[in-house]
């Protein structure tokens, strides 16, 4: 219990302290110290528990050990639960107040529905439901803790230098950096709470905190655009939150009776997963028509919906794109280790009870897979037409989350292996990419890819980091590509034919938009002046560290898979009788690993070395000889301009969003229609009193 408590309390306390710190120097030391402490603790916590079984430090059976002292779990949990409820009500009032101030009716409406519903449920039923384990830390949670602790705190440390420059650029208004850092660390605390919660009411509390943190971070600059986009994010996530509340109400109200005794309502995620898995196993051995227990299916759909809004899947992707108005470290945090990862975390966690065993098994997994697959292909294509670097990154995030969601929807152990791999690689690489783009923006004054040509000449070190990040996102033999390969393998093995189509077309588009960006930066443009000296020392440290981590994770993944991911899958899927856990064979992983090393060695040995005579480029007619101009008519020097290709007519962004949105919207309509049918049935069941 000790270390977990610290992992939540340290960021929480630090965030409160930072709210009151005005001086740069004090803030710098606190953030760096806290960052190191959180990262070190999460590494220690994860590594020391990777070998063990699932941790249940807050259980009714064993009580709670808190730094050597024992407490009874029940009363303590009640105090915590009431505090959470109180905070939720206060936050709802805050949202309603802000909603009135900025005239956002939807935000008010959603708060007015979900919070009273939750309060009613808690007061009437919730507190009577026995909870066994309030916290459950399996190996997947440990992986998430590691990602949040290491990458999240790295981003916070990076923000120090960045936000200093940022407030210089935006010097109008007062310095709101204390508030910024308060939100960043609060975010980390909430994320850690979220990934270890087993009680869904607790998880929902942390879930809503992350929603609000991102709302305040997106609206940080308080410009009309920022306010608008922050409310869009808030409304979409509150919608997901509402589904979460419904899931809690249903899970707590239903009487589970199919396997070994009756349980009158449960709020434990682990119970739902067990119950659903047992049903699935019975269904496959005894040949039921459906492989998912209906009520668990309904809860899974509601939770998956919450996850889908948070993971910004189409048609809800607009909030993540709108989040670009925030300072770049916020984007880095939202995209890599927090927020969207909370969405996919929940869906991946649900994977054992999702699952589509074949094309015609229309279970909850089926709809999740469609949403993910459609999002992957259309966001990948939408990214082609973008020249704003942050928008390219955002579409790439949405697309990759789509892939993760699709994998989780398929719900085989192999697919989840691929999904976890994608989560890890994406977190590391995307944080690196956002922080690089942020640094570039502050130094060249633009985040447009067109302005990054010849970046190698201007910011050589940063260009190398950025190139590592981009290559790691799509190029063999780096992490994301291997994960995609694993995803493809799991799609084929589970017979999800049409997702394979989504994957191959989406991957082709992915290749296109990354490489043309890469090409822009690798172009050798003469007469570029090195302007790198203005980058802060902390920024270099973090960028270098994340680059090393990006390469390091790829190289060490085969071993990490063996020692952590496979044991998790064995726990989660072993009961379902699955025996294949790795989508890719170890020999292939190791060959890829060797190729990563080969590329690094080749680049170190041969890049930029030539004994050849360097001559001007060809420019048809008379080149001026400086590679930048040619002699045009009337003997005038004409500068050349090279622009990348965005294929806006062939793949318009708006159209891609519309297609993805309409397809997924239709899917949602069907699912909710189906759910309505179920809720009528549920009502009858509740009145009848039992299954």
């Amino acid at each position, binding site marked *: 219990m000790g270390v977990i408590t610290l992992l939540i309390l340290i960021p929480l306390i630090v965030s409160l302290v930072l709210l009151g710190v005005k001086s740069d120097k004090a803030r710098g030391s606190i953030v760096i110290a806290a960052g190191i402490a959180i990262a070190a603790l999460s590494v220690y916590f994860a590594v020391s528990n990777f070998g063990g079984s699932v941790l249940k430090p807050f259980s009714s059976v064993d009580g709670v050990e808190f730094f050597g002292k024992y407490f009874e779990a029940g009363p303590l949990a009640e105090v915590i639960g009431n505090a959470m409820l109180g905070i939720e009500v206060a936050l709802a009032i805050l949202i309603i107040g802000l909603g009135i101030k900025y005239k956002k009716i939807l935000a008010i409406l959603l708060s007015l529905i979900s919070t009273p519903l939750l309060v009613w449920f808690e007061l009437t039923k919730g507190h009577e439901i026995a909870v066994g384990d309030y916290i459950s830390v399996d190996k997947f949670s440990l992986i998430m803790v590691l990602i949040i602790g290491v990458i999240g705190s790295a981003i916070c440390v990076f923000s120090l230098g960045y936000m200093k420059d940022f407030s210089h650029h935006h010097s109008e208004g007062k310095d709101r950096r204390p508030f910024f850092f308060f939100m960043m660390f609060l975010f980390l605390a909430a994320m850690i709470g979220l990934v270890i919660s087993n009680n869904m009411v607790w998880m929902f509390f942390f879930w809503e905190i992350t929603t609000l943190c991102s709302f305040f971070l997106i609206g940080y600059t308080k410009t009309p655009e920022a306010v608008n986009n922050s409310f869009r994010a808030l409304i979409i996530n509150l919608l997901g939150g509402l589904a979460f509340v419904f899931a809690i109400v249903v899970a707590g109200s239903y009487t589970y009776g199919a396997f070994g005794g009756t349980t009158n309502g449960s709020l434990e995620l682990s119970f739902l997963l067990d119950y659903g898995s047992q049903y699935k196993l019975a269904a496959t051995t005894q040949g039921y028509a459906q492989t998912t227990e209906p009520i668990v299916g309904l809860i899974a759909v509601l939770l998956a919906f919450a996850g889908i809004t948070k993971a910004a899947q189409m048609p809800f992707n607009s909030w993540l794109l709108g989040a670009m108005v925030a300072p770049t470290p916020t984007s880095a945090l939202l995209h890599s280790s927090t927020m969207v990862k909370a969405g996919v975390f929940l869906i991946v966690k649900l994977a054992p009870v999702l699952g589509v065993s074949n094309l015609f098994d229309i279970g909850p997994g089926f709809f999740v897979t469609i949403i993910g697959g459609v999002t992957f292909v259309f966001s990948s294509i939408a990214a082609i037409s973008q020249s704003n670097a942050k928008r390219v990154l955002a579409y790439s995030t949405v697309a990759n989350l789509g892939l993760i969601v699709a994998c989780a929807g398929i719900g085989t152990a192999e697919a989840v292996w691929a999904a976890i791999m994608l989560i890890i690689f994406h977190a590391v690489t995307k944080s690196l990419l956002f922080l690089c783009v942020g640094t570039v923006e502050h130094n060249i004054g633009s985040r447009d890819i067109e302005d990054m040509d010849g970046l190698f000449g201007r910011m050589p070190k940063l260009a190398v980091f950025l190139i590592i990040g981009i290559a790691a996102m799509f190029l063999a033999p780096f992490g994301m590509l291997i994960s995609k*390969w694993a995803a*493809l393998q799991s799609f084929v093995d589970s017979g999800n034919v049409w997702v394979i189509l989504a994957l191959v077309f989406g991957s082709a588009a992915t290749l*296109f938009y990354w490489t043309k960006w890469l090409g822009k930066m690798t172009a050798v443009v003469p007469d570029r002046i090195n302007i790198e000296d203005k980058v802060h020392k902390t920024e270099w440290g973090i960028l270098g560290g994340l680059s090393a981590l990006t390469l390091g994770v790829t190289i060490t993944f085969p071993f990490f898979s063996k020692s952590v991911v496979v044991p998790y899958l064995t726990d989660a899927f072993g009961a379902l009788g699955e025996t294949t856990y790795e989508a890719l064979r170890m020999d292939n992983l190791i060959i890829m690993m060797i190729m990563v090393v080969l590329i690094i060695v080749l680049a170190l040995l041969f890049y930029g070395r030539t004994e050849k005579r360097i001559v001007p480029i060809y420019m048809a007619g008379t080149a001026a000889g400086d590679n930048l101009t040619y002699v045009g008519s009337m003997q005038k020097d004409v500068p050349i301009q090279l622009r990348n290709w965005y294929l806006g007519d062939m793949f318009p962004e708006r159209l891609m969003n519309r297609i993805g949105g309409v397809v997924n919207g239709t899917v949602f309509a069907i699912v909710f229609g189906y759910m309505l049918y179920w809720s009528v049935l549920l009502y009858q069941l509740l009145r009848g009193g039992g299954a």
Partner: protein
Amino acid sequence: MDTVLFTFYGYELHVSYLVGAVLYVVLAPFAGGLIAGIDRKVTARMQGRVGPPILQPFYDVAKLFGKEKITVNNAQDFYVMCTLIFMVISGVFFFSGSNLLMMIFTLTAASIFLVLAGYSSNSPYAQIGAERELLQMMAYEPMVLLSAVGFYMACGSFNVGDIVMSDAFSFKYLIGMFIGYLFIITIKLRKSPFDLSMSHHAHQELVKGLTTEFSGRTLGILEISHWYENVFLLGFIFLFFARGSLPYTILGVAVVIVCYFVEILIDNGYARMKWQFTIKSAWIVTLIFGGGNLFVLYYLQPILAR
């Protein structure tokens, strides 16, 4: 005869795999050069010319290596070298019976290095060539991946070694994939109407496209890597017919020869089309033939699994 030399996490290195890989590395450039020579000869005959000697490609490359050592920057040679290295590696994967997807991804990496070589020059012609090369990759990539998936569904393995020795006559199940692959290999072999990024023909509006800024040795290395590439692109066609026995091997080789002849015919029979046509037609063909075949395979799976 086919003993296992050693095993490595489930991978068994057969003697035949080792022999295949070594033969590929040593012989592929000769075979590829020869194919290029025959291509030029046949093309010339189709155009009513006598054409160069069959060995002309080798003379050309030898001459390129003797040229003055110049380059436009210090980065380009690195990328071209990586193109060659990864091209050879992907061919080695193919001929040593390894994973088909791994081979495809490595091939993609090789092609990306080539594109970067074009971009790195920052020259107008080379950059437009590089962008078009990228577009071509986007056009053919889905079909290449789908073909691999097709083999997996038909033969139960992604490993080239297993596919070659499989009992299943892949072609029977993969007719759609085969048509799709033939379509996109036209792009890959840089034949008209899809030779957008660079061309052997004299109808280039982009000077020499992607390769405009390559000279001497660099161009020679690139040519050799194309030879390596073409050999296993044709090997991929052979895979549709391989069944581990002599008659099917002969059939496979015959089909490869016929297909290549058809490619030359198409090359000479068409003018270059616009890029829009390239991507649209390739993706539509992939969807209809590749995707259609995939769904058929899905229904056939219970039969195939038997």
